[in-house]
């Protein structure tokens, strides 16, 4: 049983921004963060003077490795003009900025600060695919690396265990991919803006133009089954089961609840937060759930007095298609072993009973690892304010959403519940 926790005082989000996610030759980390920061300040409708920001918490996994530059806290504080206010970097692999968000919450809840900027960034695309894979593999546990496991490899092994235990198969993973690709074109910030059907048409047209033999696929699954279109990366993970290499930045302005209305007419409140930790695959009792997610979820539900059925929609950490199935079960949206059936039945689609990854998820929105946690919260914030445009969740009175972020192979997991009052 996880201890029931509460904040010393409430915290509200009064502004948020994120850069476009993608592979950018002509933009660096500072440019991307500037993009996110400018959108954030513009979103605070009663205005924010950056001089009033008390501190910055910034999530970054490994620009050290990717860009050969560390110590990003003060670099970013300098470009946004908050120096000499404190700037602190947090690292939790792919959950780095969810940790920055939590530090910002604690700093305000303790009464020490009133106005805190939290953010995240990662710049990965200037490295080769092999180098990025090596960089990401720094966040597996040592025994896994020595056995030849890569990141997709660990999730591939998890998938084989899930298939064995619950009778699912590759076709069920395809449902996750197709759903993410259907949401992404509706998100102007997403890295991939094509549905699987669009991709098929593009490939057919391109082959016709080049005078090459044209492959006609019957439907999306037929395309995803074709090893030429969707090659194996780490069985059963194929190319379309894996998130891309991305650059991007995200940020949010947090303030004490009692002053929230000074900044915006539409504050979004932090209802529950949770964080857990986990071990390497070999030390897990069962490979079909993440202990860290279950702990984080219990903490967040306990704090918010909310239940899984109260969460109207959520962003979950779909670094690989199989991961989305585990998360929607671990967060209690579906019973263990029922997640893949729920996805197959369309329950997690934009118009389903529990929309998941309306942003397109990591798979299609992109996954600049250090920026991901706050970009998920950005999506929830956007939806709760009714500003998600064509991908707006079609539920009347949308009030409560969740964001789940995972670092490494489940070593760090967070769950955050936001609400509109």
């Amino acid at each position, binding site marked *: 049983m996880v201890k029931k926790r509460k904040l010393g005082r409430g915290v509200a989000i009064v502004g948020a921004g994120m850069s476009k996610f993608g592979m950018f030759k002509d933009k660096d980390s500072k440019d991307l963060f500037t993009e996110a920061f400018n959108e954030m300040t513009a979103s605070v409708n009663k205005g924010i003077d950056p001089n009033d920001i008390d501190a910055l918490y910034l999530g970054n996994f490994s620009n050290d490795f990717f860009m050969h530059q560390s110590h990003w806290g003060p670099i970013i504080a300098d470009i946004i003009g908050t120096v000499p206010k404190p700037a602190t970097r947090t690292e939790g692999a792919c959950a780095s900025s969810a940790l920055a968000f939590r530090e910002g919450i604690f700093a305000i809840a303790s009464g020490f600060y009133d106005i805190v900027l939290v953010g995240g960034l990662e710049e990965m695309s200037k490295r080769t*695919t*092999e180098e990025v*894979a*090596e960089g990401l*593999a720094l966040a597996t546990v*040592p*025994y*896994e*690396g*020595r*056995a*030849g*496991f*890569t990141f*997709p*490899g*660990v999730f*591939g*092994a*998890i*998938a*084989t*265990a899930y298939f*064995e235990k619950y009778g699912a198969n590759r076709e069920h993973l395809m449902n996750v991919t197709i759903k993410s690709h259907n949401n992404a074109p509706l998100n102007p910030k997403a890295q991939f803006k094509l549905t699987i059907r669009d991709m098929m048409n593009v490939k057919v047209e391109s082959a016709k133009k080049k005078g090459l033999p044209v492959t006609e696929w019957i439907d999306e699954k037929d395309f995803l089954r074709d090893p030429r279109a969707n*090659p*194996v*990366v*780490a*069985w*059963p*993970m194929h190319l379309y089961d894996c998130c891309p290499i991305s650059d991007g930045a995200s940020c949010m302005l947090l303030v004490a609840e009692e002053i929230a209305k000074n900044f915006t007419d539409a504050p979004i409140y932090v209802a529950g937060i949770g964080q857990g930790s986990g071990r*390497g*695959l*070999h*030390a897990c009792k069962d*490979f079909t759930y993440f202990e860290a997610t279950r702990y984080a979820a219990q903490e967040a539900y306990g704090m918010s007095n909310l239940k899984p059925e109260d969460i109207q929609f959520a962003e979950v950490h779909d670094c690989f298609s199989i991961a989305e199935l585990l998360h929607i079960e671990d967060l209690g949206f579906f019973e263990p072993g029922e997640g893949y059936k729920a996805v197959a039945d369309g329950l997690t689609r934009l118009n389903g009973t529990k929309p998941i990854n309306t942003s397109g998820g990591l798979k299609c929105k992109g996954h600049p690892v250090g920026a991901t946690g706050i970009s998920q919260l950005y999506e929830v914030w956007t939806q709760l304010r009714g500003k998600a445009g064509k991908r707006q969740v079609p539920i009347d009175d949308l009030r409560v959403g969740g964001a789940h972020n995972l670092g490494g192979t489940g070593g760090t997991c967070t769950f955050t519940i936001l609400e509109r009052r």
Partner: protein
Amino acid sequence: MQERPFSDISYEQFLNEERLMGSRCTQCNALYVPPRPICVECHRGDMSWEEMTGKGKLSAFTCIAIGPSFMIAEGYHRKNPYCSGVVELEEGARVDARIEGVDPKNPETIKIGLPLSVKFLHRKEDESLKTYLAFRPS
């Protein structure tokens, strides 16, 4: 043997000697492979070394087409994938290992529950001997 600390370095030394070793808590009997110096089950016990029989079964696996540089150096690539897995030892603990003697190009033929026996892969790296833990069908 009793002198060695319950560490990754000792674990690797034992692998060099073709011994798969774990640590067992003298209080609560919990078994750890690789060894742990602290019992995370009871937080009370001292540890003692225990040698595994090297027999087990496959509990999860993957066949990797795009591997890390040291696997590429061994000749693995997109058209020549390799298998990595988690093996449940007959003593109950689980270890990450390379899986040999299976067909990674046809992963559908590899079944969870497959009985396996340990194999020690010795490699010379930077003038020192390094041993990778592997298993193959019994």
